[in-house]
């Protein structure tokens, strides 16, 4: 136990002082979060809002799943693939999850390279991340095609509650759109890094503001968020 923690455990008023210090730090001059630049803070606030969007999607899905009177199709059977004669439950989803989480790894490496000013390595790692993201979307397209061939529609499916198809297409579609937008952002930022825009201070076409290597990290925040959301979709839609 550290000294301060010990003191605050013995004397509650010391803890009160700590709370006061915390609040006065937050309320302090000019910046509430001195470590965060304006754009990074904006991305965090946006992601907070987007969390609520996905939260509402998932809660809505769980509500219809619980309130529907028809049995829900079994995800491990629906999402099984037959490979070499054996039926593997959820195999495609497992690969997709692996790919997306790996892309978070390459993204983190890109951010680290960016702050070390390794221009080409940064751009290449971002391209690799975008490639993994595209692979993910491609596999999702494959999954959609397979299900559509099996007769799954937003309004019906052969196995049970029709909300299955509706929730599946809506949630994975919305998440896939996020991944696609993320890939586009990565490509744009990677191009700027490759061209050296952040070294020369070249101005953006739309915003007419010079960019910084920090933009790599901000794109990364979005990317990790999309990845994290997928973990929840995976747990709540496929594993439940």
């Amino acid at each position, binding site marked *: 136990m550290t000294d301060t923690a010990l003191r605050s455990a013995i004397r509650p008023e010391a803890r009160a002082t700590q709370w006061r210090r915390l609040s006065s730090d937050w309320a302090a001059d000019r910046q509430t979060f*001195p*470590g965060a630049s304006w754009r990074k803070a904006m991305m965090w606030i946006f992601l907070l*809002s987007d969390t609520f969007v996905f939260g509402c999607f998932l809660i809505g899905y769980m509500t*219809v799943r619980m309130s*529907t009177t028809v049995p829900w199709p079994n995800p491990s059977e629906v999402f099984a693939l037959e490979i070499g004669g054996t039926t593997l439950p959820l195999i495609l989803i497992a690969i997709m999850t692996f790919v997306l989480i790996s892309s978070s790894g390459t993204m983190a490496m890109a951010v680290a390279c960016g702050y070390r000013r390794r221009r080409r390595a940064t751009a290449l790692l971002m391209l690799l991340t975008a490639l993994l993201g595209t692979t993910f979307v491609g596999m999702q397209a494959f999954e959609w095609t397979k299900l559509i061939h099996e007769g799954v529609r937003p309004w019906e499916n052969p196995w049970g509650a029709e909300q299955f198809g509706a929730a599946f297409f*809506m949630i994975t579609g919305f998440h896939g759109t996020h991944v696609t937008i993320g890939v586009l952002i990565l490509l744009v930022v990677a191009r700027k890094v490759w061209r050296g825009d952040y070294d020369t201070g070249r101005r953006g076409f739309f915003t007419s503001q010079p960019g910084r290597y920090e933009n790599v990290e901000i794109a990364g925040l979005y990317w990790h968020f999309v990845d994290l959301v997928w973990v929840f979709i995976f747990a709540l839609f496929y594993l439940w």
Partner: protein
Amino acid sequence: MADAHLGTADRLPGAIEEGELYHPRSWITRYVFSQDAKIIAIQYSSTALAIGLVALVLSWLIRLQLGFPGLVSFIGPSEYYQYITMHGMIMVVYLLTALFLGGFGNYLIPLMLGARDMVFPYVNMLSYWIYLLAVLVLVASFFVPGGPTGAGWTLYPPQAILAGTPGRDWGIVLMLVSLILFIIGFTMGGVNYVVTVLQARAPGMTLMRMPLTIWGIFTATVLALLAFPALFVGALMMLLDRLIGTSFFMPAIIEAGQRLRHGGGSPILFQHLFWFFGHPEVYIVALPAFGIVSDLISTHARKNIFGYRMMVWAIVAIGALSFVVWAHHMYVSGMNPYFGFFFATTTLIIAIPTAIKVYNWVLTLWRGDIHLTVPMLFAIGFIVTFLNGGLTGLFLGNVVVDVPLSDTMFVVAHFHMVMGVAPILVIFGGIYHWYPKVTGRMLDERLGKLHFWVTFLGAYLIFFPMHYLGLLGVPRRYFEIEGLSFVPASVSGLNAFISVVAFVVGAAQIAFLVNLVHSLRHGAPAGPNPWRATTLEWQTPETPPAHGNWGASLPVVYRWPYDYSVPGADRDFVPQNQPGLTRAGAPA
């Protein structure tokens, strides 16, 4: 870790970022596609007022039908529902939300905090243009076959998307698309407002030195960023139900002897999503009004706001509580009755911070040097109407009282008092207060007082009798109440009276618009600080403030925003950026 690698070309950790201003080179980028928050604020406000006029005309048509049924031939039941729906949605979302956050927020946040602009002006500009697109899509629904949706502003499924509801074919689709656009546009503005408040304040401007206006707008923006997602998701799901035949909200339904394709969905899920947005929305509108009215009262009573810290914490507490009260709109929806107990309790708890605010406003007025200027009149009018509407809120927050009253005119009276009339009075007060800074000229005071008295007394005459109508059992949302056995015949006389007053109050707004336009050219020159106010926006080097707001260097803040009538000071106000003398005349 990452920060350790921030090189010299990057911002040093802890150093304040000075955003580089975009300097417009042409008339188009200066006044049309402007990235200056002040221009964007004017664009937001004008658009919101313009669409608000549409909603005002719709309210006339509603009153025409209620007061004088059958007088005009073109109002049938379908039209009546369309008017009600559009009136409600426009007023709540496209007028009040847009005007408080997009209008007042854009103008006041950078100026009151001593920033040069919002933190990301380009995205801020996009926010307005997407808002305008949302408004245009909404207006377009008046011109499509079948007209706008008549589902009621709450858009409850399944009826909102079933045949028989007006505007089922096109109107509801355009409404949902417009809401989705509005939310996207708002989010772009909202992240700007929040980050500007958190990260771009002038030197010396701590959070506890921010004017309450900013606290209100800031907290409301946070609420909006967290509450609009629920509406976004609900709107998207209903759009899918309507367009491609999913059944998120649609139970099994038999229509004209035919079983519809829908089945198994949960209509009450939409109500939860809608009100998870809808209740915070009340405070998205109310909190900026609370903040603005605090500043108006303090300035025009020449007295510091009573209990500043409590006012701040009350705003924050109301904001937090507003997320756990939503189902008090759903007592009659058929949800589990035990929920009613929980939500009634939280609803009544929210009365505590709200009451703190009302007491503090009154105590600020107590023995103040009250100047009955036009903004002050509107501020006092707000306290009265808000108190009135808040008290009926306590009635309706209790399940046992709400159940018999919930579909009567009592509810209409309640929410118009508390989130219709009260915030609108603050908007007017705010416009009279800040117009001199925006244009450099004063609004005409005689016209303003006429506008105030007709609006305030008229609004009371309109909505106060509605409480009686509600207690008599007059139902809301009915196209016609003639011949209902449970409604006494005397009701129609009162209804006609309300309608006549409504026409007069609506017409009085013309005086306001004339004043706005006329004073642009012919108003008395205002000077930089006509109200002798302390906050930073009145201390700009130029009036109206120039691009970049502050000239060569940012203002430095030395004190809180409420140093009025300080003993020992040479004037009865001490601007926030004046060094030296502190409160009670002690040296700094």
